[in-house]
């Protein structure tokens, strides 16, 4: 298991390759990467706040649960906080399993839990406004399938 909560940018490609190389016995690797969206031309910036201490513990607990439930070979979560520019990578998840269905399900489970149960709060910054991102009904509802 690898969990990192960090201000620094990360390299999706390098982490994906390292993860795949370590995942001995796996037949399937799934990665997810979340990016700051370009909202119609003007790249938005984002400020991400988190709860140091709780964040790492909450993520480690989710990853433990995913590893057990889908018999994962390995799992990784990297999540940034602080100020991010438009199109920058916010976070990534990687899962390794023998079969693809488990790798996909575990990655989606981790994403749903990170969205609504890891203590991060996003603020979208545009040229003339700053607004906290509201949690959505859809994100909360997504947890119900697990």
């Amino acid at each position: 298991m690898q969990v990192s909560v960090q201000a620094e940018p990360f390299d999706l490609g390098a982490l994906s390759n390292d993860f795949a190389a370590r995942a001995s016995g796996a037949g399937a690797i799934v990665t997810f990467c979340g990016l700051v969206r370009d909202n119609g031309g003007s790249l938005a910036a984002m400020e991400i706040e988190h709860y140091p201490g709780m964040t790492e513990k909450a993520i480690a607990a989710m990853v433990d649960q995913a590893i057990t439930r889908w018999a994962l070979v390995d799992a990784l979560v990297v999540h940034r906080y602080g100020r991010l520019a438009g199109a920058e990578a916010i976070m990534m998840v990687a899962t390794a399993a023998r079969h693809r269905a488990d790798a996909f399900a575990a990655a989606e489970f981790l994403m749903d839990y990170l969205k609504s149960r890891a203590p991060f709060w996003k603020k979208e910054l545009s040229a003339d406004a700053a607004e906290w991102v509201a949690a959505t009904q859809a994100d909360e509802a997504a947890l119900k399938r697990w």
Partner: protein
Amino acid sequence: MIDVLYFAWVRERIGLPRERLETTAATVMDLIIELRARAEHYAWAFEDITSLRVALDQELSSFDAPLAGVREIAFFPPMTGG
């Protein structure tokens, strides 16, 4: 003594990220009622608890949870990670 932490717009409304309080509140809800009475901006931060979440010693909890033995309590809006 209990450490009280605020995040996101809760922190912005209250105007500080954390404070150390003396309280005799038995539950999270009792503490919220105490805090609301302190000042206008606290009342504003805690006006609608359905839009708030609470963690006790860094574990998500509920508003009726007891505070006995708790060292750190955090109030924040629903999380928006990922």
